[in-house]
């Protein structure tokens, strides 16, 4: 496992998994901005995507040209096995912590 997975990176990876075939830059940005009520820029979004790609958590491919974007293609993102393992590790770590009977986090 290379690289440490940050909070935002984890969020992006999960969103990619949620969007499935439709996971391209703008769709991810909109989804995250909506869910988390943040106001991220496209630059920040793509920077994170680039870093994730470098760390080997995602791969990307260009889609077919679409009319609504003036013939420009979308870049779609997919999770790699590494990412799936990392997300599972993360989740089990959290589950472990949450499952402790002594925990008292009731709102």
């Amino acid at each position, binding site marked *: 496992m290379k690289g440490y997975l940050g909070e935002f990176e984890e969020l992006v990876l999960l969103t990619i998994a949620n969007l499935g075939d439709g996971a391209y830059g703008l769709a991810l940005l909109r989804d995250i901005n909506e869910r988390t009520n943040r106001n991220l820029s496209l630059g920040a979004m793509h920077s994170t995507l680039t870093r994730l790609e470098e760390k080997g958590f995602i791969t990307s491919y260009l889609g077919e040209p679409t009319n609504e974007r003036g013939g*420009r293609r979308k870049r779609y993102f997919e999770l790699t096995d590494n990412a799936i393992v990392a997300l599972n590790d993360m989740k089990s770590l959290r589950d472990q912590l949450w499952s402790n009977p002594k925990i008292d986090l009731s709102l």
Partner: protein
Amino acid sequence: MKTQQQHPPQFAVKLLRWWAKGSDIEDLIGDMDEEFAYRAENESLLKARLFYIYQTFSLIFSYAVKRRKASAAYSDYYSANTGAMIMSYVKISVRNFSKHKLFTLVNVVGLALGMSVCLLALSIAVAIYQTDEWHARKADIYQINTFIDDQYGTRTFASTFPTIADKLTADYPFVEEAVAVRSEFSPAFLVNGSSISFDGYYASRSFFEIFDFPLLQGDPGTVLRDPNSIVLTQSVAYTLFRDEDPIGKMLETAEGAFQVTGVMADPRSTHLYFDFLASASTYTQQADLTSTQQWGPFMDNYVYIRVRPNTPQASMKEALAQVASLAEEYHPDTSIELQATNLGDVVPQWNVSNNIGIGWDLPSLYFFFSIGLLILVPAIFNYTNLSIARALKRSKEIGIRKVVGAGTGQVKTQFIVETMVLTFIALLGSVLIYLPVKEQFLDMIYAAEVMDTSMGWIQLSVFLIFCLLVGWFAGLFPARFFASLNPVYTLKGQLSGQKVSVSGIKKGLFVFQFFVSLVFIIGVGAIAKQYAYVLNNNHGFNSDNVLVVPFERMDKQVAINELRAHPDVKAVTTAGQLPGVPLSNEVKVLPNTQDTLEVNQVYIGEEFVEQLGMTLVWGSATQLNESNQNEEKVLVNQSFLKSMSVFDQQSDSLQFTLADGTQCRIVGITEDFNYEPLDRLIRPLIFRQSLAQSQYALLTVNSSDIQLTMSELEDIWHTIDTNVHFEATFLDDEIEKAYSFIRAQIKIFSYLSVLAISISCLGLLGMVSYTTENRTKEIAIRKIMGATMNSLYFLLTKDFIRLIGISAMIAIPFSYLFYDKLFLYFLIRYGPGLGIQEVVVSIIFLFAVGFASIFWQTSKVASSNPSENLRYE
């Protein structure tokens, strides 16, 4: 497509694309466009646009774009210029050059000629800027300059009051050493019976403490300590003493005897220029100066100080201000300011008078460079023209390059690299031209031997940078031209939007080139005419067949008698100074009790006037012999009388008094003739008869075998005194020597005109080949339709004839004004001016050379077979 208003801001897209430098950002722009369309529909267009710009900047500063740019730099497709690509361009250029040999030759020769003058200027500039860089503590050495502000205006002098040297060392501890140098000391040393003149300085004892001039013999601390000490440079020591040890030898001069205390290496790469250094104590001992005199005149006196390392500028300024206020006490109504100039900045300066040594200033350097550029710029434009003339041949190559993906920048780089390769080849040629030209040039300028213009690495790198700059500049226009070609047209064999005719700028350029050539060539003619004139013209005396023999220590009367006995010698007279060469002997005349008038005086012997065929307008020269103790009989020229008439004179206008009290009576008046060279004003002149003051015997010789006569005269001479050297020269040769500056001018102008003409003709060749190449088909069709050879020649040449005509029309009045009214007036005041003959000859010459190059190209096209030309392409 959406309507025009709903486009995202184009500048933002362009900015992003430019920033991304060709990396793939299609998906990013797609994302932005999609968002823009969404917002434009659901919010306002303005908001969408602003948001778009915001997103653009967020991307520009994002890691995503940075990363993509970085990876694009290593990808297979890359539109910038890599090292490998540039190597490929160099290879292509070399192949192209060897394929088009005429084009290469014409351009290399043109640029090599054009660059040679600039190289000369550059090498001299490098030498000047490196002057005095070799002194170990150069940073702490300063020359003190004087800034004067008085009723005549403000001026800066390199010289200053000599007494401040002692003042500064005594009162200001940060001044370690100070040296006072006094220039303009030109004594004649008497060695082995002959006297040789040298130029040197008086310098105080710390000279060798401040400067690092290496002493070959003698102790730096003491060589200049005692009065009448002298330090010779190595070459002077050799001239005077050959292989003997010079130390301790005495040198007799008119200013007293000097003892040689040291020998130094010849000064090199320094702003000082001297043959020897005499101890300043000699001078101060001779003239025991009062304080008023110490602070009085400062011309030709220089002070250098060496301060402690890291002395603040402020304390130096303060010290100089205090000393300057002392000086102001002796100069009422004058504001004096002293400035310290670091040794490295002494040459070149902008506007400083009374410089010591070589004294190169910036204006003359700039002038030199502008002459160089005047020659170089036409060569650069020729290259431009010729490159574009080849467009037909190369446009297909460019078309294919562009089709397979070359960007505009790459095509531009290709042509600039190609030009740089060409200028580099031209640089090699130019250096070959520059080396002999430099030798010739340095021979002509004053104090050239202290300048170090040898080829060092600084000079080489300056040359290389200059050559690359020339290449960049020359290649810029062709590069832009080729990069803008549209591959769709060029591959079809057309040049879109290219006019076949010669455009306006090119015409102007062409006229300019020929104008410059004509001005130079008329200059050569004009100066050559002056030269012929001064050599053949009678200055107002007869200089033919006159032998000049310096007396040296010979008994004059005996020598005259013995020489006169030779059958070939028609007459003998003597003179203190030779006619036709510049005079230096001045004397003060007192026309009345208050005024003085400075006039030249010449000592002459008996029959001088008759022998040299001078014309008297009044009186007779025979009365000169009648001088007695009370009254000396003299001859004067007309301008002497003119100058005297200004003053309120005594009753007897033929009588005047010299400053030393000698009473003179005018017994004859000569015409105003040029006793001095023709570039000098005719000044008031008196002739005094004195054998004792005469330096030369003037022998009018009439001989069939001059060599034999000379050797016989030498034998006679040695029978009188074997120790005195016999050195006879012809007066004509002595006069010719006085005009060596004109020979230098002729050389320079000939060289420049050869350059200018060659470059213009190369340019003409290029222009003609450009037009004829473009009109090959037209000429073929004309021939088929029945045009004669003559009409074709006329058709092809008429444009050029007109252009040469225009340049001649501009050049003739300009040359007349420039040469006749300005240049020649200063060169030879009493010369014949610019004649019509030189102008006509120059124009005919230029036309002939021009037509030859036009004819060469046109005849090729006009005589070719039309059927082949029509089949071509």
